[in-house]
């Protein structure tokens, strides 16, 4: 268990000891993402592999939804602020049965429902259009206020990124969410320490992240985002807390997690993978699963 509060809580990842079915889900999400990546030959593959465990816990442990009715009024909302992570969310939506699996071969192709940058108008289960970064958390504030007006018990999950923390709009929303005591908001930050121009910690630096959100009045947890047990505990705590505050789960993830030769690549914001390497990537993913 590596659930903890505060920036000091970062710990090395441990193999998950329980929740094996969630590990299976995460494996499938990675597999779907790699197969989509292969269609383009390049793209946001490292992000998808890194965030797969978080998506597995979100979609197969925490969230309430009906695959056959993506707009079911009582569903929990999942807002993907980082539109370029669409490949990761499509993989989760495929695994959740919201998108048919064979459709992954259309990823990013002309006239597909799975464009490279996520858009609400294109894809079942995609709640917002997120490619212009810095929109998600503000939208989440509005979703949460609206749900409260309707006396709904649904949660709003909003996934955003370390690079996105540079946008002032994120902090406007963070401030507002605590002002409105949005205890139905669960923010998730993917801290993969990467953005377009390089490591996020070098581009402008974002620490101390937990302390920053605490000072903005949030219920804060920081976990190893590739440790499924820790994620389960953190998401449970976020949902079950009785504090009248928005919740944030800061997830430290490893880019390209599960495919060692991709994990080692440095310039991995937009990965190029050679045609012969895809099969190898899938094999290594399988090997890591059985190990």
């Amino acid at each position, binding site marked *: 268990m590596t659930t903890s509060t505060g920036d000091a809580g970062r710990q090395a990842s441990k193999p998950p000891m329980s929740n094996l079915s969630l590990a299976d889900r995460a494996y499938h999400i990675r597999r779907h993402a790699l197969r989509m990546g292969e*269609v*383009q*030959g*390049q*793209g946001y593959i490292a992000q998808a592999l890194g965030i797969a465990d978080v998506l597995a816990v979100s979609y197969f442990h925490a969230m309430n939804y009906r695959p056959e009715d993506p707009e079911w009024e009582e569903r929990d909302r999942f807002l993907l602020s980082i*539109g370029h992570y669409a490949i990761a969310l499509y993989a989760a939506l495929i695994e959740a049965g919201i998108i*048919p699996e*064979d*459709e992954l*071969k*259309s990823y*990013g*192709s*002309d*006239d*597909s*429902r799975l*464009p*490279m*940058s996520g*858009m*609400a*108008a*294109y*894809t*079942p289960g*995609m709640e917002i*259009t*997120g*490619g*212009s*970064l*810095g929109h998600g958390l503000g939208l989440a504030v509005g979703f949460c206020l609206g749900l409260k007006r309707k006396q709904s018990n649904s949660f709003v999950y909003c996934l955003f990124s370390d*690079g*996105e923390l*540079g*946008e*002032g709009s994120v902090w406007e929303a963070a401030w507002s969410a605590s002002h409105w005591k949005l205890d139905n908001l669960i923010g998730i930050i993917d801290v993969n320490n990467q*953005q*377009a*121009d390089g490591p996020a910690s070098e*581009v*402008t630096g974002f620490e101390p992240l937990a302390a920053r959100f605490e000072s903005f009045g949030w219920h804060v947890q920081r976990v190893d985002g590739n440790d499924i047990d820790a994620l389960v505990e953190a998401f449970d705590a976020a949902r079950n807390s009785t504090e009248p505050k928005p919740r944030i789960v800061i997830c430290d993830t490893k880019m390209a997690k599960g495919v060692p030769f991709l994990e080692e690549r440095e310039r991995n914001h937009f990965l190029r993978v050679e045609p012969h390497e895809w099969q190898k990537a899938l094999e290594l993913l399988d090997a890591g699963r059985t190990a």
Partner: protein
Amino acid sequence: MRRSKYTRPAWLGEQGEGGQGTADKPRLTTSAMIASLAGADQRTKPAPFGNALSALAETRPEVIGLTADLAKYTDLHVFAKAHPDRFYQMGMAEQLLISAAAGMAREGFMPFATTYAVFAARRAYDFICMAIAEENLNVKIVCALPGLTTGYGPSHQATEDIAIFRGMPNITIVDPCDAHEIEQVVPAIAAHQGPVYMRLLRGNVPLVLDEYGYTFELGKAKMLRDGNDVLIISSGLMTMRALETAKALSDDNVDVGVLHVPTIKPLDEATILKETSRTGRMAVVAENHTIVGGLGEAVAGLLMRSGVFPTAFRQVALPDEFLDAGALPTLHDRYGISTKAMTDSIKGWL
């Protein structure tokens, strides 16, 4: 072309069937041509903006470069490497990028600030307007992915950037065509005192205008080739397409002239009026921009105000819509700005 998101694309066929098109006509992917607009056998030059800015900085110590997490994607990384002490990485914060550039301009520096066109035009508009344009500050805003130059959909397609900036007083708008021109634009806008918005082509940028003995002059439109039947008035990458269209139409004995208008504001009214006043020519304005508020409407307004009426007036421009995601060649065909689409349009109008 938007369908319901609950309808499975017909081309995919039933579960398990369909796929990436056919062998002779593969279905294109969005990331095809992601870093370059160049055709397969086109001559190109790498990072003309980054290289030209690095060279300029050698002689102009006040030049500095700033970006909002897009150095690599605006070719500013070349400058950052050549002049690391004059490069400012502002993080992904476009409003800050612009405000900070304004502040540095107030202290006497000449900031070149880079991001994508959508993020300057949309997110940072108020900051550009009040901090830079209203003060007439010497900031050069250089933006990649102008108009329809990415298949990522509306979040990245700056289809209305020129309309937005045309409405802003004081700002000069430049839309260069190729690498040869970009290299000349950089020192020229530095020599101009005041704010500039420049549309950037990045990566391996096509090289075309050197063959026409062309030189860029800020504020000047130039005839690249003469023709008696049609006058294409164009800017940016559409000038490249206009030249190809002219060649294609000459096979059909249609004589097409091309007037390149890289400076969209202030407009070279004298040259445009002179060329459109010549009798017997259809005027076609071609732009990589929505039909609303760009070069086409700027020229139309000028002609109306001046009482100049060409044989016919037509626009090749993007429709007033949020455009699809997909591969650029597909989208350029679909929305009428590929060479083939433009050639067909003009044939239809003749």
